[in-house]
């Protein structure tokens, strides 16, 4: 399963970024193999309407699950349509800690 976590920088030690579409980085973790890819968000500083575009981007990247802080209204509509379950990190964590929290099932699903 590929987990996408919104982050302020690349890698597992980066702090989680609570904003979804405006996150500077996405860290993709393939839980089966442990493979990690950090990708800069090209739409980070762009105009409005970034939410659905970013959803398309992470869907194309193969994300099965999203971990972030909060979703804007349009991103929320798109993530549902993409059938990518989204989970909220409740506090300031690193990407690695958020991944652990997700694995242990302590994160709340954003619905």
């Amino acid at each position: 399963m590929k987990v996408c976590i919104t982050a302020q920088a690349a890698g597992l030690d980066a702090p989680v970024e609570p904003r979804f579409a405006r996150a500077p980085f996405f860290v993709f973790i393939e839980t089966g193999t442990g493979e990690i890819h950090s990708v800069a968000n090209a739409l980070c500083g762009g105009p409005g309407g970034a939410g659905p575009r970013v959803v398309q981007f992470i869907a194309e990247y193969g994300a099965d699950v999203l971990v972030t802080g909060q979703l804007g209204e349009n991103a929320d509509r798109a993530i549902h349509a993409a059938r990518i379950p989204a989970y909220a990190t409740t506090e300031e964590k690193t990407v690695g800690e958020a991944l652990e929290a997700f694995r242990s099932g302590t994160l709340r699903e954003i619905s």
Partner: protein
Amino acid sequence: MKLVVASGKGGTGKTTVAANLAYALARSREVVTVDCDVEAPNLHLFFPSMAHELPARVPVPAVDPARCTLCGECGRFCRFGAISVLKTEVFFLPDLCHSCGGCRYVCPENAVRDEYRTVGSVRCARPSPSLTLIGGVLGEGEVQAPAVVRYAKRLAEGAPLIIYDAPPGIGCTVIETLKGADACLLVTESTPFGAHDLALAAEVARQLELPTGVVINRSDGDDRAIRQICRELGLPVLMTIPFDRSIATIQNRGGLISREHDGWRSRFAALFADACGLGGRA
């Protein structure tokens, strides 16, 4: 003659000036007004009458799932996030779409066709045989204000004398209003506070090559500062409306000074003649 009444900021009495002009001119000729302030239309309030409403529709994409290969091109193109390609479907958020047509253009499978969606309406009324009011109304939560302005303007097209009441500010809808017009009147107050907005609006009009004049509204009698600014901007002051109790009383109850005072009626007729002169027209 197509004349825009605009102002750099709201609350300067722009609509009142447009209404007075329309009333004064409609005494002797046929006038069509177009309220382009589609987010807060109020020109019609000066002329209570029955209105017909037409839907203002825009083309939006409809994807044929039989042709679509989910290639993602349309979603990568749309900078408004209105169309996105997800794993099993193309997802469309109609209220974000600006009808640019790009998604249809970039689709390699020719899977996108136009569908029509109502984003507002246009009200048409005829309070007197020589006066037609056309007004755009943007639907709640909709983004396509310029499209509604275009729609309203199109309905007035062909009339010999059109007065457009522009939205306040200098956004896309103002530019849409100014496009294709012959001249522009900027309504300002006598305080220099609005000077910055006046200068911005004048600059937009200049870029669209619209001859522009100024109406000073609610003048306290000391207009030196604003006149100085107009001189610097090269804008002639065509009319000054004093801040005066009898005028305020008429306007506070929604009345028009050109309806209640013959003097003002001829002054507004003269204002129009001067505005025509700006554009080098008779």
